[in-house]
């Protein structure tokens, strides 16, 4: 094994670009492991643990330097990998052509970018957390509304930013806001949806995505779908951004109905939301995942148990359409068919999700049937000690920090989930596996393809033991991955395709209910 490292001083690339470089290096022939990272203490640690950086190399590099670390079979392999990297480095600096041949414009500074675009009104900020608050503030000082995608922003900074935003009547969606639709444009991880009269304000990112794609599927359309950042409805932040957004949506002529998608707000914040929306002329529907309808009793706010219900209620109110109630026996026949194929050992469900809210909704629906489930996103007794190892009924959010530290998010890169599917398949106690498949901007070009291949391989690894795979696509037929084609790929691999995330969880729950009933009888 040949080890090679190189430190390039004062050389900065963003995290996604670096991951692409790392991928290219790792894939080169004869390379066992390789990575290109910025020299922060954390990254140097990761690289050293992976055996691709020596202590000497680590000492050379500072946080603004780029480190290349390679472990390969031979010097030639190292040289070949490096020359591949050079090609990537050289091409990444060039102007890219957009599909219509127009050059994507670049600017050396915020001010010249604002000038170049002809006077900006909106900024998307996704720089590393350490710098994100300052950049968001700079944008707002110049009168720009902000989508703050970055996380690792302190709560003090969040409050400071939002106070400024509220005072100056600017949007500050974030920190850690990954999804929004403003004036019909999808930002971050978002989908192509119809324009219409439904608006939403949501601390939840994938929650917002799921509700919006269901609305689109049901024939409704979105006026505005605004993020607030996950911490906005906690007591310290006090719902600052949510309240400002709700007010604006109530005053927006295009908006007919308003939805809120979030985990239950802090008591104080909930009170403020209720007091505010009481004055509204438009109906409000809230999906407080993990909450209950008592929270809004007497307030006039409609309560949705699931994101699907939230979408249905909003479309109903907006377009006057009505939807039938869920049939509690919808999946009975399917459940009977599945349980007939299990071995006596198979009894558990595993949920492997790329979206946090999708995972959480899955947990809530599964718990109704099987009781508490283990997870990496809940606290207390059922918090998974080791996220790599499932215990009994387990639902995992693979977009959580543990999995995304130094690795791309599972919505972008399917490798970690693919590996986990195979691992779960080898567990003889697993009966059902639930997956999400997120489409749209920012997401992997073919998540269904990767999941389907993984499932087929998993089946072989499990010696054809029957495991029920259930998936739902969080996407629309207009997304570039094409939901129809994605669902086809899943079905062809023997994966059961549910309408949406809630239905996927309900399907899994129905199977487990029949399974447990059968065994306990």
């Amino acid at each position, binding site marked *: 094994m040949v080890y090679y490292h190189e430190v390039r001083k*004062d050389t*900065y690339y*963003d*995290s*996604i*670009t670096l991951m692409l470089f790392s991928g290219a290096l790792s894939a080169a022939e004869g390379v066992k492991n390789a990575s290109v990272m910025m020299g922060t203490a954390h990254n140097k640690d990761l690289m050293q643990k992976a055996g691709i950086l020596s202590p000497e190399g680590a000492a050379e590099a500072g*946080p*603004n330097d780029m480190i290349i670390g390679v472990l390969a079979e031979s010097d030639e392999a190292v040289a070949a990998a490096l020359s591949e990297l050079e090609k990537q480095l050289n091409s990444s600096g060039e102007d*890219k052509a*957009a599909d219509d041949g127009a050059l*994507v*414009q*670049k*600017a*050396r*500074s*915020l001010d010249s*970018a*604002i000038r170049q*675009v*002809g*006077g*900006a*009104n*909106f*900024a*998307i*900020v*996704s*720089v*590393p957390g*350490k*710098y994100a608050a*300052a*950049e968001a503030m*700079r*944008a707002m*000082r110049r009168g*720009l*509304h902000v989508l703050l*995608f*970055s996380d690792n922003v302190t709560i003090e900074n969040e409050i400071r930013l939002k106070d400024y935003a509220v005072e*100056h*009547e*600017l*949007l500050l969606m974030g920190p850690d806001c990954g999804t929004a639709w*403003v*004036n019909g*444009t*999808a*930002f*971050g991880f978002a989908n192509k949806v119809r324009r219409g009269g439904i608006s939403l304000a949501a601390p939840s990112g994938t929650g917002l995505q799921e509700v919006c794609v269901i609305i689109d599927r049901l024939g409704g359309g979105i006026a505005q779908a605004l993020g607030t950042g996950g911490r906005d409805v906690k007591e310290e932040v006090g719902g600052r951004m949510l309240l*400002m*957004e709700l007010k*604006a949506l109530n*005053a*927006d002529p*295009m908006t007919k109905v308003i939805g809120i998608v979030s985990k239950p707000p802090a008591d104080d914040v909930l009170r403020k939301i209720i007091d505010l929306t009481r004055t509204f002329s438009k109906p409000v529907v809230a999906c407080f995942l993990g909450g209950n309808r008592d929270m809004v009793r007497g307030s006039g706010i409609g309560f949705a148990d699931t994101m699907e219900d939230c979408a249905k209620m909003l479309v109903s109110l907006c377009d006057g359409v009505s939807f039938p109630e869920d049939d509690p026996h919808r999946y009975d026949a399917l459940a009977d068919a599945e349980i007939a194929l299990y071995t006596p050992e198979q009894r558990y469900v595993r949920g492997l999700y790329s979206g946090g809210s999708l995972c959480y909704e899955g947990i809530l629906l599964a718990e109704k049937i099987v009781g508490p489930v283990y997870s990496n996103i809940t606290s207390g007794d059922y918090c998974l000690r080791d996220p790599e190892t499932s215990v009994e009924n387990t639902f995992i959010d693979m977009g959580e920090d543990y999995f995304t530290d130094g690795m791309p998010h599972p919505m972008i890169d399917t490798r970690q989930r693919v590996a986990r599917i195979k691992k779960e398949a080898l567990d003889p106690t697993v009966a059902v596996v639930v997956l999400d498949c997120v489409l749209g*901007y*920012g997401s992997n070009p073919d998540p269904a393809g990767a999941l389907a291949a993984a499932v087929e391989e998993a089946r072989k690894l499990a010696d054809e033991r029957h495991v029920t795979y259930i998936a739902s696509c969080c996407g629309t037929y207009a997304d570039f991955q094409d939901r129809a084609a994605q669902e086809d790929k899943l079905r062809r691999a023997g994966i059961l395709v549910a309408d949406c995330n809630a239905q996927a969880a309900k399907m899994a729950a129905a199977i487990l209910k029949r399974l447990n009933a059968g065994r306990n009888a």
Partner: protein
Amino acid sequence: MNGLNKLFTEDLRCVNLGLEIFCDAAVEQGTPCVQVEWKPPAGGDPRLLMVLEWLEV
């Protein structure tokens, strides 16, 4: 008219600081977006960042 409501009536013109995919996606949807060639200001030195913050650069 509130600033947010005003935004809802305007054509979006965006600037992007960070991951280029966001800029590409906006442009693909016909929304003008310019990518800022961002790197950590002041080489990340916290003292310099403090002065720049004070200056509101």
